């Protein structure tokens, strides 16, 4: 179909629908559909109001479904949730029989009944999902997947009543890269891509759950793998969809080739970060959950994106978005490279003449009693210096998680001060 023919087709479709809307039987059916659904809505509203007064403690909304409700509660929520489609179906069936007796057309009513049955099934599915699975997860599926599918189904059903969808899909509003870009292509490019992205995200979360819960893989590698999986699948989807849409490879290559010069200069940093991100993920030098020191701040890696990495600064809980390129151009200290053990030292100056053994024992005892200090490797106390007035001791201990470094150091320092005072060891 040429662009001119496409405009003609759209114009003809508009006139055709104007002709339909002029028809008495169409007007009557639309009025009947809107009227009965409106009546069902009012009926359901009245019922809910009566029910709330009669049983004020019973939950009515599906989002308030709890796991341990009684059957009575489940039933009441189900009635509330399914009442509108059920009433609409009853009223529409009744009205369609009435119209049939008058030998009026009921094809639109039949379609409305068909759509309402699907709607009832859809609501029942949602009710079952909310009853059986955690609400937050179901809500994601509900809003991102089920609602768009139902809306598309209804739209398709209504459009197919009066329009040849195959012909509609062939309408060419514009030409792209020398190829006709049809409404069908637009549909696949938008909705196809949307559903692909949604499905990939769900697959990714499922994958991470299986990896972390099922085979007890560390969160870091699991997340890195899922990111690679996500971008891999998304890239594949985009390539497939562009291929289906019919964008010519040669034209696409020529345009992207030309753009690449501009990209090279203008988006140099973005591209550099993008490549760095891929390298970081493949190299595995950094993983979500790692504790690193960046620009003098101890931070935890939260998320690794393809362009930037998000870290949480342990000092003030703020988050920093660090371009991936930085991990290749600046020195970064990681405390969790090969393992997560972190050694900390606290220096204490006791007054000259203090009992060396007592100080050593007290320090070891304090370290041993602190739960977050590891017993293996064992804490060590060393005498690292002395002078006329003081003896300098160093307590070295290991922590399993570097995030607790400041807190543990502070707690142990407090304890040393208190214990030394109790044992009359003077600190200089």
């Amino acid at each position, binding site marked *: 179909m040429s662009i001119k023919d496409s405009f*003609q087709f759209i114009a003809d479709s508009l006139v055709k629908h104007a002709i339909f809307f002029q028809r008495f039987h169409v007007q*009557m059916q639309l009025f009947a559909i809107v009227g009965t659904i409106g009546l069902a809505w009012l009926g359901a509203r009245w019922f809910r109001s009566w029910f709330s007064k009669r049983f004020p403690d019973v939950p009515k909304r599906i989002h308030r479904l709890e796991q341990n409700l009684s059957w009575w509660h489940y039933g009441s929520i189900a009635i509330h949730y399914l009442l509108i489609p059920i009433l609409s179906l009853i009223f529409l069936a009744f009205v369609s029989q009435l119209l049939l007796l008058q030998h009026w*057309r009921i094809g639109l009513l*039949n379609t409305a009944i068909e759509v309402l049955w699907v709607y009832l099934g859809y609501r029942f599915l949602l009710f079952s999902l909310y009853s059986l699975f955690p609400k937050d997860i179901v809500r994601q599926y509900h809003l991102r997947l089920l609602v768009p599918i139902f809306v598309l189904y209804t739209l398709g059903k209504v459009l197919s009543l009066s329009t040849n969808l195959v012909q509609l899909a062939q309408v060419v509003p514009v030409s792209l890269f020398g190829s006709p870009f049809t409404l069908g292509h637009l549909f696949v490019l938008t909705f196809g891509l949307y559903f692909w992205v949604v499905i990939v995200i769900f697959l990714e979360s499922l994958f991470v759950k299986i990896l972390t819960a099922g085979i007890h893989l560390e969160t870091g590698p699991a997340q890195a793998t899922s990111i690679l999986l996500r971008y891999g699948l998304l890239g594949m989807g985009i390539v497939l969809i562009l291929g289906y849409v019919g964008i010519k490879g040669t034209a696409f290559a020529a345009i992207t080739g030309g753009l690449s010069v501009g990209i090279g200069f203008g988006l140099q940093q973005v591209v550099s970060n993008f490549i760095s991100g891929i390298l970081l993920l493949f190299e595995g030098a950094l993983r979500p959950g790692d504790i690193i020191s960046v620009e003098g701040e101890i931070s935890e890696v939260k998320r690794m994106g393809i362009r930037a990495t998000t870290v949480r600064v342990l000092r003030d809980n703020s988050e920093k978005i660090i371009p991936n390129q930085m991990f290749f151009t600046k020195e970064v200290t990681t405390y969790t490279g090969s393992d997560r053990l972190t050694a900390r030292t606290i220096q204490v100056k006791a007054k000259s003449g203090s009992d060396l053994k007592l100080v050593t024992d007290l320090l070891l005892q304090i370290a041993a009693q602190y739960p977050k200090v590891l017993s293996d490797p064992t804490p060590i106390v060393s005498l690292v210096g002395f002078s006329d007035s003081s003896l300098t001791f160093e307590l070295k201990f290991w922590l399993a998680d570097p995030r607790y470094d400041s807190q543990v150091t502070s707690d142990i320092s407090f304890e040393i001060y208190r214990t030394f005072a109790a044992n009359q060891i003077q600190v200089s």
Partner: protein
Amino acid sequence: MKILAKALLSIVLSLTACSTVVWHQPPRAPQQAQGQLLIWHPFENINARIFKDALTEYERAHADVHIVSEYIPEADLSTRFIRQFQAGLGPDLMIDFASEIPALIRAETLQALDQTAISLSSYTPQALTQVRYHGDLYGIPLNSQLRVLCYNQAIVEQSNTAVKATNAGAAHGESSLTAPPTTLEELIQNARAGYSVGMVSTFIDTFWGIQIFGGQLYDVNHRLPFLKGWGEWLTWLRQAANEPNIVLGQQRFVLHDAFTQGKLAYYVCDSTEVADFKQALKDNFAVARLPGEPDHPAGPLLFTRALMLSRNASPTQTRLAYQLAQFLTNPEQQIKSAVQSQDFLPVNPDVVINHHVLPIEAVLLEQAKTSVSISLDDLDKIEPILDQGEILFRQTIIGDITPTEANAQLIQALDRAFDSP
């Protein structure tokens, strides 16, 4: 954009005025045609273009009329029409074979036309009998189609040249090979002389030969079915099938392709195939009347396409549809369609075609004069007979039963169908 703007304007105008115009305005004079009309048609390629050109011409003459035409595949037309009608949708006017009318009437989808609003003399009686059902008129004939003898002039003229060159052939009775065969005997002679002949081998496609052997669908009173010549025709067909150059095949498209590629000299074609052949073979393509006997010409079945009015059409659209139908079937339009498509068989008896200007159309019109037109009133009873005929035809061709047995069984079936109330 201009088209869209026009469409939007017409929607606004129609939505603001539609209901009142349809239901309360006094009837307009015919020359003040106004409104919108949705038409479904099964025309493809050149025929679709010709049809659209005709609609455009009508719109040009009636500035306030907007016609939207939609192509629907022929096989889907009536089923989709019924389905859409039941929703209050579908076209105001549909073009389909008249044989679909009974089913559409049973689905209560068609309007019985006001016979006083149409000039019935503008249509051939043969065409009218195919749109009249139990006394009411349910369609306005648009054009007809039938079987005719298509031939490749290049192959036939080669023969002509060869005969002239040797000059001996004529002495041996080969003069009959220089022109299309006019009798069955000549057809066999052509086949034996090496000119391949293709025939679609079904009961309906071979119906044309029954009349040659004295058989008729109707008797002199145009009432009782009468098919006694079928047995002899079957016998001839069985003998013809043994001729090496006569190809009887069930697949029309195979023979169609063979003729297009110049592998067949003669082919009993459907008139709807003419446009394809003309395009493929150019001036080498020609048609002739089907072979017959001087007193008993061939009688192919005539099929008529008609404009049918939906019961969903408003009174205004109905009036508009009458006008449009009369426009499409006026002699000028019918000749124009015939000139452009070359396979258009007019239904207006006032159409006069010059044999020299439009040789193909002239032959089609000539052939139509001896064609058999099944009236719509009889169609319900005859359709099962056609199915039965097809079964018996197949059994005879493969040798399961004799032509005489097949004929006797078909006549019994006909008698049963027409004797029953």
